Each structure stands twice: as C-alpha cells, then as structure tokens.
C-alpha cells in the first residue's frame, strides 16, 4: 500500500526528516508543507538527499503556497520536485492509500 509522507519542519533540528526518508518504501510519495519546503531549495544538502529518494522511484511534492508565503519562488526549487496547490494536496491524499505526518 503506497503511503503519502508529510513533513512540516525544516530538516535541521529534528529527527523527523531522516526518519521519514528512511521509512519511505518504493512507490510512496513525499509532500513537503509549511517549513519543510525549505528542504527542497536548490543547492541545499537536504534537496540532494530528497532527490536520492526520488531516484528510487518515489515522488516528491512541495506545497506551492507554503513556498510563496515564505518569499520563495518556484524557480528556487531543486530539480525533481513538483509543485502542488491545496487541490493537488487533496488529490495526493486520495491517490495514496494512507498518509503519515511525521511532525
């Protein structure tokens, strides 16, 4: 059963980021919301780690409004990330069998 993983904190100062990546199975999806969008910025080590996960045929998504409310344009996203709006967020929840919020 493919799972949608949700992260909402920056990769620094919390074990959630590493724990989430370690717990992702092939076919799972990852959605970065709130402060977790910082993890997908181009040139950051976290974006590199996330891309490595994406390479294992997972999908990585970023909530667009949380990027923009943090004064970050979509252009600053590292390669391999897809932007979704809240409607897309709802669709992802529907698409995957279950969701997990790592906090």
């Amino acid at each position, binding site marked *: *059963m*493919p*799972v949608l993983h949700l992260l909402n904190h920056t990769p620094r100062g919390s*074990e*959630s980021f590493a*724990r989430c990546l*370690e*717990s*992702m*199975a092939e076919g*799972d999806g990852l959605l970065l919301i709130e402060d977790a969008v910082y993890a997908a910025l181009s040139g950051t080590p976290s974006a590199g780690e996330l891309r490595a996960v994406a390479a294992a045929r997972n999908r990585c998504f970023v909530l667009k409004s949380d990027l923009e409310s943090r004064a970050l344009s979509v252009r600053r996203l590292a390669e391999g990330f897809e932007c979704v709006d809240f409607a897309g967020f709802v669709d992802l929840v529907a698409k995957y*069998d*279950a*969701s*997990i*919020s*790592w*906090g």
Partner: protein
Amino acid sequence: MSASSRRFLFLVRHSPLAGARFRETLDMIFTVAAFDQWVTVLFLDDGVFQLVAPLGEHSASDLLWGPMLKAMDFYDIHEILVDEQSLRLRGLTASDLVIGAALVAPEHVRTLLGQHDRLVVC
C-alpha cells in the same frame, strides 16, 4: 458498531515527560483497542525512553508511566515493537525495557507502514 475495521499503527516518537503528551497518546491507543481494532505500537526515536523500566516502587518514574504501560496488556495490545537502532543510539538494550517488546530493524518500519491503514505519529 462501526462498519469496517482498520489496522492502526501508532509510532511513538516522544520522550515520556513531554507534558501530558504521553498520557494522551496512551489514551488514543487504549481507545482504539477498546473498539476491538488491530493495534500495533512502535516505539522509535526518543519514544524508546518511554519503555525504560522504572527505578523501583515509589520512585517518580514508577508512578508516572510504568503502570500505565502495563495497561497495554490489559487492553490486549500485544503488537509492541521497538526500533532496535533507536535503542542502540540511546545506549539502551532490551533488558532495560519495562514491558516485553519485539525489536525491529529500521527497514522493517517501511514494511509496517504498508501493512496498516491508519498511521498515527505521536
């Protein structure tokens, strides 16, 4: 009674003295069990500290969470798992634990997630 049954996985990741959090987490777990649902509880990251055996009768640790954990058995929650790596990283071993729990490897967490349909990180 509710229509369908679900498989709940609780991932306990917080240390025991994080305010009321632990008590409220146990209340969720016990309530789901009282509905006769499949319940698996996985202790990982700082959550493994919740399983450390109390120092003894009348110690603060005994009164705080040791007895409540034993209620897991009362509510027939027998799928109690501990992430082995989280234990090791905190200098703990299976002999430090207050209740019987099966050790699992980090890769197993992935499998567990796929086997449950209600995933609750607490």
